């Protein structure tokens, strides 16, 4: 097991060095006490790609995500977004730099209406969130964009519904569309289809494919048919380390990956 883990792949072949990477994590690690959840992982995400982060349970995918968005602080390593070192920024600063995430548990504002949920996100760029002396009508101009975005996920007829009362699938859709409202350069999706029924998966997959136009998407995903269907590049993590990286075809033929998934702990 140890030998296998140490046998890290170098994701880049020399000919690809000139490629345009929007997000580069260089040897990032996270240690919780004596346990290394993420161990010197190097991840390069190409601009405009849909990049998947996969691996067995406990491989460190979500921790990796939390490091990239600075929800957790790095033990070591560095993260560069668009040529700018973001290793020491706070999570909200990272979001303002254009790297915005969604969460595994639907992160919405349950006691606010669907339209208000959208308006909160749109307020970020409007930059009026400290204006306590102005009436809400001053941000009514955001409603048109909010409604337009909601119509993309079949939430157009739920504007005044309390977000907490939406069905599970619609909550996930609302969260993704809230993330989209910020028009982020890089969008990180943590298991966007987790816990969803078949009928909900297809529209969400379509939404991800559609929203990836003009931006980069990095996602953690367990559903291999989605990964095969929409992802350009895949990084496989195991025991907090990079196991393999490549296209779906290359990954699915990789023996180390197969053994990690089938008899990985042998």
């Amino acid at each position, binding site marked *: 097991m140890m030998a296998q883990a140490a046998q890290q792949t170098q994701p880049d072949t020399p000919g690809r060095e000139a490629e345009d990477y929007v997000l580069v994590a260089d040897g990032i690690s996270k240690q919780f006490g004596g346990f290394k959840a993420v161990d010197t992982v190097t991840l390069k995400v190409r601009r405009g790609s849909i990049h998947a982060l996969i691996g067995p349970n406990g491989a460190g995918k979500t921790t990796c995500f939390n490091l990239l*968005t600075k*929800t957790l602080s790095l033990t070591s390593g560095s993260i560069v977004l668009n040529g700018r070192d973001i290793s020491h920024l706070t*999570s*909200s*600063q990272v*979001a*303002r730099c254009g790297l*915005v*995430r969604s*969460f595994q548990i639907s*992160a*919405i*504002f*349950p*006691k*606010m209406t669907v339209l*208000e949920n959208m*308006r*909160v*996100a749109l*307020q*970020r760029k*409007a930059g*009026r*969130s*400290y*204006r*306590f*002396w*102005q*009436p*809400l009508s*001053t*941000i009514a101009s955001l409603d048109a964009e909010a409604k337009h975005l909601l119509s993309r996920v079949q939430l157009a007829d739920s504007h005044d519904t309390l977000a907490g009362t939406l069905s599970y699938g619609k909550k996930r859709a609302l969260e993704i569309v*809230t993330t989209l409202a*910020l028009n982020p350069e890089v969008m990180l999706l943590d298991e966007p289809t987790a816990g969803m029924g078949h009928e909900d998966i297809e529209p969400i997959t379509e939404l991800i494919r559609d929203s990836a136009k003009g931006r980069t998407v990095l996602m953690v995903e367990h559903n291999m048919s989605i990964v095969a269907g929409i992802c350009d590049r895949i990084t496989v993590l195991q025991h907090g380390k990079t196991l393999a990286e490549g296209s779906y075809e290359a990954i699915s033929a990789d023996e180390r990956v197969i053994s990690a998934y089938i008899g990985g702990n042998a």
Partner: protein
Amino acid sequence: MRSSLIMAALVVLALAAPFAVYPVLLMTILCFALFAASFNLLLGYVGLLSFGHAMFFGGGAYITGYLVRDLKWPMELGLVGAVVVALIAGLFLGTIAIRRQGIYFAMITLAFSQMIYFIFLQAPFTGGENGLQGIPRTPLLGILPVETAFSFYYAVLVAVGLGLLLIYRIVYSPFGELLRAIRDNAVRVDSLGFDVNRHKILAFTLSAALAAFAGGLKALVFQFAPLADVSWTVSGEVILMTLLGGLGTFSGPLFGAAIIILLNDTLSSAGEWALVLQGVIFLIVLVFFRTGFVGLLSRTKIIKLV
């Protein structure tokens, strides 16, 4: 249409009230209503439980009293002074307290309020245990005499009305919408790129200033700033008023303040039993009517309150 009729009726009622009810009692209700509404701005709309809000309320009373009595400022400037001091203190204390959440935030605010209690107990101008007494009521705007409780009532009514309007504006502003989002899911607000702590600090500072304004008004009503107003019991009482009236509703704290003040007034002859009854009512409301008085009223469908 219906709501504007209700508003008009309320205004008429407020204007006519001192003809039927003792004006000092009415003014006490008004001051505590504003205090509870400022507290609700934090607990109801941001989800921050301050357990030391009496420091701003009682502190505002002392500062106003000191400026008007000892420095001979007109009372309007005395109130402005209290608000300015509370803005600075709120910004400073809020910046420290906001670093912790939940029970730790509550405990930090309690610790601050205990410190401030002892500062006011020991400071040379406060009169120690006796409180700051003999605050003169200067003529309103330098010309209108407001010596009598009856005439001063209208000045207090306008002042509290303006304070409540400001709170209404804050709650239904772009900032207020952000505050509700923070209350619902602060982690998500952060991940969208907002500075959550800065929004919380601004809310804390505004709440502190409004509480000090309410406290300063109360000092002018009684011409007296008592030590009790900075004590933790008043911090507890404002929590009671807010929960009893209806947390996170605009009118809830106003009803809550009125209920508690009227209850204390009617039961004052019963001595300690007043507190026991207060406790019983509080328990009944928390166990059976979690949405408070306003929630109960809304359930009857006769009137829908915000």
